[in-house]
């Protein structure tokens, strides 16, 4: 099968973000950026399927500014065969991303599209489901297990009560959860090799879809901050605190 894996460049998940004083957003200038962690699990899943002989080609795609070519390079270093950067400056919402990806799917004709279940910047958790809706393909979201069967895939999903396993025919959309696999670290020689792999850049406007934002962000504010409370001196003091709270709740 042929696999398309969609990735997003975000503020590195280890960075403690800062809300701009004027409430216009989160500071992203001079902040370390990297591939969204969930997308790394999606790339790893695609590369593992290729290594096991289930996939003939893995194409990585990202939608974003020119600088997003660095996350595509990471995906190529992890083992993707070629990259596509759909060049779009400014904010593109999940619906716009899904529409652009649907066009890329038309061109590339993959059997499986892998995505991260959510991006750690907007925490939207929408794009994979939207792409499945636009293509009328089956979707298996929040995947923590993925196996190839004769007639498609067997996907284990993380759900409210535990896990549930589904049979999904191809073509399909799968979104990766964190326990799907352990993404590999890439050594320098793999990065050097990745630089020689094809990386196409194409303007988003050339796909002829409307990806203008539908949502206006009015303000961004920091959440209420919690202050450190009391350090207790003994287990007895802790018993008093907990028993007091429980009694107050039951009153």
């Amino acid at each position, binding site marked *: 099968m042929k696999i398309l894996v969609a990735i997003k460049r975000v503020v590195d*998940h280890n960075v403690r*973000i800062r*809300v701009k004083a004027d409430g216009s957003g989160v500071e992203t200038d001079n902040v370390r950026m990297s591939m969204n962690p969930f997308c790394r699990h999606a790339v790893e899943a695609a590369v593992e399927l290729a290594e096991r002989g289930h996939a003939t080609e893995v194409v990585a795609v990202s939608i974003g500014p020119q600088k997003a070519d660095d996350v595509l390079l990471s995906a190529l270093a992890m083992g993707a065969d070629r990259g596509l950067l759909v060049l779009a400056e400014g904010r593109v*919402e*999940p*619906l716009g991303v899904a529409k652009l990806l649907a066009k890329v799917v038309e061109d590339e004709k993959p059997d499986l599209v892998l995505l991260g279940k*959510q991006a750690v*910047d907007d*925490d939207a*958790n*929408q794009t994979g*489901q*939207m*792409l*499945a*809706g*636009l293509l009328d*393909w*089956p*979707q298996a*979201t*929040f995947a923590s297990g993925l196996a190839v069967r004769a007639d498609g895939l*067997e996907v*284990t*999903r*993380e*759900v*409210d*009560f*535990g896990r*549930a*396993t*589904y*049979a999904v025919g191809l073509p*399909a959309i799968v979104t990766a959860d*964190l*326990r799907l696999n352990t993404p590999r670290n890439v050594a320098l020689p793999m990065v050097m090799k990745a630089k020689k792999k094809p990386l196409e850049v194409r303007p988003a406007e050339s796909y002829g879809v409307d990806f203008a934002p*539908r*949502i*206006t962000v*009015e303000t*961004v*504010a*920091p*959440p*209420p901050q*919690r202050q*450190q*409370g*009391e*350090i*207790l001196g003994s*287990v007895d003091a*802790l*018993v008093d*605190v*907990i028993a007091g*709270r*429980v009694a107050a*709740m039951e009153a």
Partner: protein
Amino acid sequence: MAVLLLADHDRGQLTPSVARAVKALAALGQPIDVLVVGAGVGSAAEAAAQLDGVSRVLRAEGAGWDNVDAKSLAALLESLAPDYSHIAAVAAAMGRDVIPRLAARLDVMPVTDVVAIHDANRFDRPIYAGNAIETVRVEGAPVLLTIRPSAFGAAGKGGSAAVEPVAAGPVESLAHFLVEHRTQSDVPDLATASVVVSGGVALGSTHNFEMIERLAHVLGAAVGATRAAVDAGYAPNDWQVGQTGKVIAPDLYIAIGVSGALQHLAGIQGAKTIVAINTDPEAPLVKIADYALIGDLFEVVPALTSALEKRLGR
């Protein structure tokens, strides 16, 4: 126009989060219809009908509707959409799965994980693991939402709405349910529990994690875990609290051997009182706790459990 809420239920029981979503949506000032989909959902539909603020319960029932996939569920919602200004679901597995798919079918941008409703098209939602809150205005109709239940109180149970069957077409699922792996437990629902006891990777083993469960049992509490503890296999995935697990807002949160990674703190911001038991006084969780005890959890927790057992007479 009215508001349609897709209701979560599990093994025939309405999920407690639904009452919170009803309370949240009441702010829109419109009639609320609740849609219950599945097989054997009679008592869940009755429970929904009793929630204050619900004007009608729609019941889509049949063998094929049990474990229905996102495609079929989105198609059902799409057929009902013309009658509604807003379509909402709880921000849990089902709602997160189906609402964006429906949004793409209707060509609208959904607002997910809503924590405050200002008016018909202005909402607050957390971004960056709850380290920032954005206020957004959405264009287009209908407005599609997922509601974070921990951000809202629960609707009362004084209602008596009518329950009506809804014409649900044939199910054409693309993803077929095979088997479930259910965590066996008789503890309260983690997403809505008023007391939660959580353990971190410092517990060191599944066996040691039972200490957390014993303390939770004494307090009638739900059990939570950090991502590291789940990844290590000490606790099942549905106990995970945090950005990518469950976001909770209990009255009392007791964190044991939990250092407080950013993504875990994101899941407990709304807790009223936080208690930390940790060896490290500099742990991020200790820094935001209302009460902290610095000490070895393997000594503190058994002593605490037996003292509380006596004090609370359990």
